[in-house]
């Protein structure tokens, strides 16, 4: 059994020299890489979010707090493992396992680099465990089975919050996986393949993120939904559902869910890197050095990891910036914006690709004509007179109403605050000292103005400070 797989067609990487032992070594290396990366990712996230919130983050255990995740993991392992009484025992145990196993599957088809010679041997092998003609679909399949872990975990806990988390997660996955799959379809159309090595190979000229920018944006949004990260972390929204599907989990089982979540972050980042950001290919100015020297040998691993961690940073950045969406807004966004946009984009890409492949029409001239027409349209739209009555200017002329619409409101731009009644009181005191009162209107502060004036004082003080 020399060759593990028959030399697959439709795959760029050549695995025909791989032996079983080599595959086992690669699999173990991937496992080690993922586990170490998760430890790093937890530390990285806490550190970066800490910096973003003007605090140091973990800094006690080890240099720069690097060992913090290890101590956290140890704590989780040594905690008491509680199985709630109402739990459905078998499924309760199975759920975290499903999550972790499915998250581990994805990296099997992610190319870390091109074919390299393993040091001290004559073995040449691609830096990838395996590849299929349907590798990206395989990734989607692994992700969609992984969601069973979340759903079953929520169900089997026999408790309300986990169940709500599970239901939310189901709805979320069904709606966001559609947009995700559609955004990937345009990459398939241009690359002409679903194998990861072939897709990386097709990005020699430029990365697909540039011509397929809308698909890339849709993928970035839906991947946040896919891995339950802020602003889409509704299945485990701690403000609403305690911690959603993993509320009743503790100790090792909880650690598995946690592990799966971070591995999934690495997974979607790796998929985005491979499909949209050129995979292991060096970024442009570097790729031109010395006839593409940096695209050969072991260099590509560096570029791959750099892109991966850049995306991980993006995850953390988004988490530190955005708030969680309300559930109905989230669903509306998914179904009414994301999916129609993804569909329209796929249709457009398919039409362009079809015209390029099946007709003799010069696509460039058509696109030039279209863009000229579009430009003319924009110019023509400038000639159309604007609608009158910008409402903002009118509002400025309206005198300040402290309770506009029933709410206590601050003044709009251009509106003036009425003089503070406290100042009026001070004037009264001064006026009492001096027989000739200066301001007759401020002499008697009307009781009705006290409340608003009290509120206004704060803003005044702020202005002064």
């Amino acid at each position, binding site marked *: 059994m020399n060759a593990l797989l028959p030399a*697959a*067609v*439709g*795959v760029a990487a050549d695995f025909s020299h791989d032996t079983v032992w080599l595959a086992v070594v690669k699999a173990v290396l991937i496992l080690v890489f993922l586990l170490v990366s998760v430890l790093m990712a937890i530390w990285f996230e806490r550190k970066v979010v800490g910096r973003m919130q003007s605090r140091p983050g973990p800094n006690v255990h080890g240099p720069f707090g690097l060992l913090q995740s290890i101590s956290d993991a140890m704590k989780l392992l040594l905690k008491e493992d509680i199985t709630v009484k109402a739990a*459905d025992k078998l*499924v309760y145990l199975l759920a975290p396992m499903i999550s972790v196993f499915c998250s581990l599957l994805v990296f099997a088809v992610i190319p870390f680099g091109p074919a390299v010679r393993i040091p001290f041997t004559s073995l040449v092998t691609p830096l990838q465990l395996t590849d*299929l*003609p*349907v590798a990206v*679909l*395989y990734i*989607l*399949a692994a*992700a*969609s*089975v992984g*969601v*069973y872990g979340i*759903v*079953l975990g929520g*169900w089997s806990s*026999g408790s309300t919050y986990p*169940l709500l988390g*599970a*239901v939310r997660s*189901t*709805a979320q*996955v*069904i709606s966001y*996986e559609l947009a995700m*799959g559609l955004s990937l379809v345009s990459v398939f159309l241009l690359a002409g*393949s*679903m*194998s990861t090595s072939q897709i990386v190979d097709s990005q020699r000229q430029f990365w697909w993120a540039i011509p397929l920018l809308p698909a890339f944006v849709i993928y970035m949004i839906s991947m946040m939904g896919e891995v339950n990260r802020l602003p889409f972390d509704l299945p485990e929204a701690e403000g609403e559902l305690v911690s959603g599907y993993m509320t009743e989990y503790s100790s090792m089982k909880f650690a598995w869910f946690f592990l799966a979540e971070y591995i999934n972050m690495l997974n979607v980042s790796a998929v985005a890197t491979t499909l949209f950001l050129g995979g292991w290919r060096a970024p442009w100015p570097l790729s031109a050095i010395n006839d593409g020297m940096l695209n050969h040998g072991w260099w590509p691993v560096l570029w791959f990891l750099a892109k991966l961690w850049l995306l991980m940073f993006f995850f953390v950045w988004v988490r530190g910036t955005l708030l969680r969406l309300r559930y109905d807004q989230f669903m509306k966004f998914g179904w009414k914006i994301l999916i129609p946009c993804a569909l329209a984009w796929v249709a457009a890409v398919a039409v362009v690709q079809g015209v390029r492949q099946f007709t003799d029409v010069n696509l460039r001239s058509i696109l030039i004509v279209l863009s000229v027409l579009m430009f003319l349209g924009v110019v023509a739209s400038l000639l159309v007179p604007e609608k009158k009555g910008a409402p903002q200017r009118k509002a400025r002329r309206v005198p300040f109403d*402290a*309770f506009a*619409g*029933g*709410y206590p409101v601050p003044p709009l731009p251009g509106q003036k605050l009425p003089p503070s009644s406290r100042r009026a009181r001070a004037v009264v005191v001064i006026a009492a000292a001096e027989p000739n009162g200066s301001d007759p209107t401020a002499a008697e502060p009307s*009781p*009705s103005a*006290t*409340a*608003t004036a009290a509120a206004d004082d704060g803003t005044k003080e702020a202005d002064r400070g």
Partner: protein
Amino acid sequence: MTQLSVLLSLPASITSGGNVSSGETALFWVLAPLMVFGALGLLFARKAVHAALGIVLVMISLAFLYTAQEAPFLGVVQVVVYTGAVMMLFLFVLMLVGVDNSDSLVETLKGQRWIGAILGLGIAAALIGVIRTATFDQAKGLTAPNADSNPVGVARVIFGQDIFAFEVVGVLLITAALGALVLTHRQRLVPRVGQKERADARVASGGRLAPLAAPGVYARSNAMDTPALDPEGRPIEESVSRVLRTRGQRRSATEVEAQVGGTSAIEPAQIEPAQIEEGTQP
């Protein structure tokens, strides 16, 4: 007896004619009992979710078998579409309906068991007939159809040979989806009450906008029976538990002040209630 012998000879005939490796045979004999177990689980499980899990097990094992038989596209799509989307929808509905309900064994349709049994026998007879009359050609192998990779081969068949059937199925599905939309659509008779409308109504009704203060927020006395003070120094009656108020067990702010020693700045009497009431009005 002949049927049984045909069934038993089935894997053997494929092995002799086609090209089934020992690995694939081992995979089959590992997965087949699992699949039978899953299928039986679907029939005999008490809880609906367990039955759904049985189907999932069968589907994923089936995907492995497809992949082993050089149809990776079919195998993967089976998992993405059926396991990932369709079964997920089933689970979603099961969870919404009520997860702890075991299946009710009361029959709502009269005579459905008899009809079911007869139909089942009919299908069994038809299947046995098909298997008895089936003849197996010499296996051709998948090298030729998969020459340009499996997805391309499948695409040629679907979008070349069977394009009409494919389009018809597509139209059918879209019609069904549209029908579901039309049937579940209802016209809104009253205006929608959203978050903004609710907030407006709350403000307009003149109720309390902020959360209720906790009772007894003083520097030196923290007790359930002492009302909290608002920023203007007035006691907030509602901050004390309704039970204590009804029993007449609440203490007033002045009482507390007397106990505490009169050093505090609590002087509710200083501000006349009437003036404050007017002052808060717009």
